[in-house]
């Protein structure tokens, strides 16, 4: 029984935790149900690029004051729409000069990342 306690219990706990890790990985992004698998993987690829760009160019302002490590704030859909507009238009020239240096493709990566990122992804 001791052996069981010492080896098997942690093992059991680990096993029970595994699907958790798994599901967390899977839920990094949330896509509408009608998205075909190949479209999903295409979007994930682009969203991952968006994540890297976000970390490099956006998180200094949008994120540093939040609790999470990467600190991506949970923008509402409306906010994302506004940011899409802002990024494309450079609507706020004082704050978003960085967005105007990015090209169309890169802006799009970031927006895909923000739009499909699941809310509990950190």
């Amino acid at each position, binding site marked *: 029984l001791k052996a069981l306690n010492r080896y098997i219990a942690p093992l059991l706990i680990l096993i029970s935790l595994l699907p958790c890790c798994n599901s967390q990985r899977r839920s990094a992004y949330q896509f509408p149900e009608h998205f075909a698998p190949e479209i999903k993987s295409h979007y994930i690829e682009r969203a991952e690029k*968006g994540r*890297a*760009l976000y970390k490099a160019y956006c998180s200094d302002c949008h994120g540093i004051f939040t609790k999470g490590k990467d600190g991506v704030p949970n923008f509402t859909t409306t906010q994302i729409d506004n940011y899409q507009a802002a990024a*494309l238009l450079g*609507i706020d*020239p004082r704050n978003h000069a960085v967005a*105007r240096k*990015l*090209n169309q*493709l890169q802006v799009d990566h970031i927006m895909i990342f923000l739009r499909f990122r699941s809310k509990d992804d950190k």
Partner: protein
Amino acid sequence: MRILGCLLVLIISVATLSFKLAGRAAYVDAYYQNISEIRQKQSELLELLQQTDFQNTTQRTHFISSLHQLRLKLKAQDFWFRYLEPNAYRKLNGPLPVEWETEVFEKYEPPYRREGAGLSLIEMALEDPHVSKEYISENIYSSFGSLDVFAADSVVQRMRDPSAFYFANRLFLLNLAAIYTTGFECPDSARIVPELRQMMLDVEKLYRQYEQSPGAYLLNPAYWAQYRSALTFLSGQSDAYALFDHFTWIRDHVNPLFRINQQMIREHGVFSRSWMDYTLNDSCGSIFDKRLFSGQQYKGLYGMVEDVATLNEIRSIGKLLFYDPILSVNNQRSCSSCHRPDMYFTDSTVRTALQLDGINRLPRNTNSLVNVVFNHLLMSDGLHTELLQQGKGVIGNPMEMGGRESEVLTKILSCPDYRKAFQKWMRYTPEEKNVTMDHIVSALSIYYSSFSYASAPFDDAMHHRSSIPESAVKGFNLFMGKAQCATCHFVPLFNGIKPPYLSSEFEVVGVPEDTFYLRLSADEGRYKVHPVAEMMHAFRTGTVRNSSYTAPYMHNGVFSSLHQVMDFYNKGGAQGRGLSLPNQTLSSDPLALTSEEIEHLLAFLKTLDESIPKESPPDALPRSGDPSLNSRKIGGAY
């Protein structure tokens, strides 16, 4: 009691003070006032329409003159209308019944159908005495609708911000150079100068009202002096449009006003959140400076690279790639095979370039890459919105370079020089794990885009740095006036982008298949990308800069000389030659240019030839690890 009295005085003074602070903005009041006057005049016009018999010349003339009165009222608020809601403005005084547009921030979306209505269209319709009254009243009714837009709180709110004035003024000045004097929205050329004069006086009044409003940033004395001298110049100009001196108007009046306005924008520290100012550069002091607006982000994935040394490194690798046939499937064709750097990045020796098979010809003439960064849509049919897509499009096109992306990339990276360089720059693109085709194409566009920033003798003349021949000045005045070139080729790039430089325009001119004018070119143009009736045979308006070096002309290279091009336009395009083209946007009326006038126009075009840096091929191409690739020829075999 005394305390109460003190309190009362205090309350009253605070109240008056706050009333003063929140005082009424005179220019906003005047704006509302003007809208109601326009509405009043519109109703009167509608009543007059019922009583007018268009067969009767006197009544018809009377109706047209009321129309002109209404347009003067409208022009008095053009300053705000065009800046605040340009799409609603189309229904007040639009040049065309239907326009399709993709503006710079609508790149992800299909083109928008924008309907025009209003005074210009009515005036054009009245040329036919049997015009239906319904058509005219419909046009008046739709302009009623857009007046409501201009009176909406959400719109007026934007002009209440005192900074908006300087950006609206900038657009006004750009339009003074590019639109108001060309008859773009004024079909009766006899009205152009009188309308301009009146509009300038109305704007002067508007300036005063603005300056009297609380919170206004005052115009500086230099601006006022320059504006008064512009008014004096205009009062000295004859009403006869043919005599109007466009050259002096822009060089000595509009451009200096623009420079001072830009200076005031910087000094007052005002900034715009409006998409109308998206492409414009606040630090540019002249309309004829290439930094005026940005069309393309030409750095691609390397947008964040600011360091000049690194940019130069990328540019030199870009140059090697430009001359390297490794980009094509057979390792025999490079970018420079068709876009020859010694020929203004086009090939003036052939009508259309050879296909990849080395036998057949491509359907379209090679566009010069010089000044291509000043476009929002690329290719003759506007297929691409971005230089990256365009580059990849050509490399992958089976008729052009035929390379499959992954294969081309492997070949490029088999050369240590390329591989090391791109790997070194990976830190600028944190989103990419490996070198991609986007990196390659970014380096290419950083290379060739650097040739787009040269100036021409005409630009120098506009800056008073040198003079151009008298015949070229006459040619410019014809270009802006009688020859109607500037209604499509807008100042300052003389391409299809008009202020505020947000979208590329397409025109249907009716280019023939051959110089005998037996039939139209079969190329559907923009229709291929965007299949709507208006876009059949439409092509993107290119620049006329460097035209001495970019022969042959038109999408199919049908004309080998500029004389042929002049002749084509002088006779009214395809319709003017009796070919059927119902959606032609070029007027089919002959321009009646004399041969002397054509020589003046050509002299003007010559002054638009830019002195772009001389370019010679690289000494050698990077060696590849694959020996079979090392016999490739610099610039390609054909």
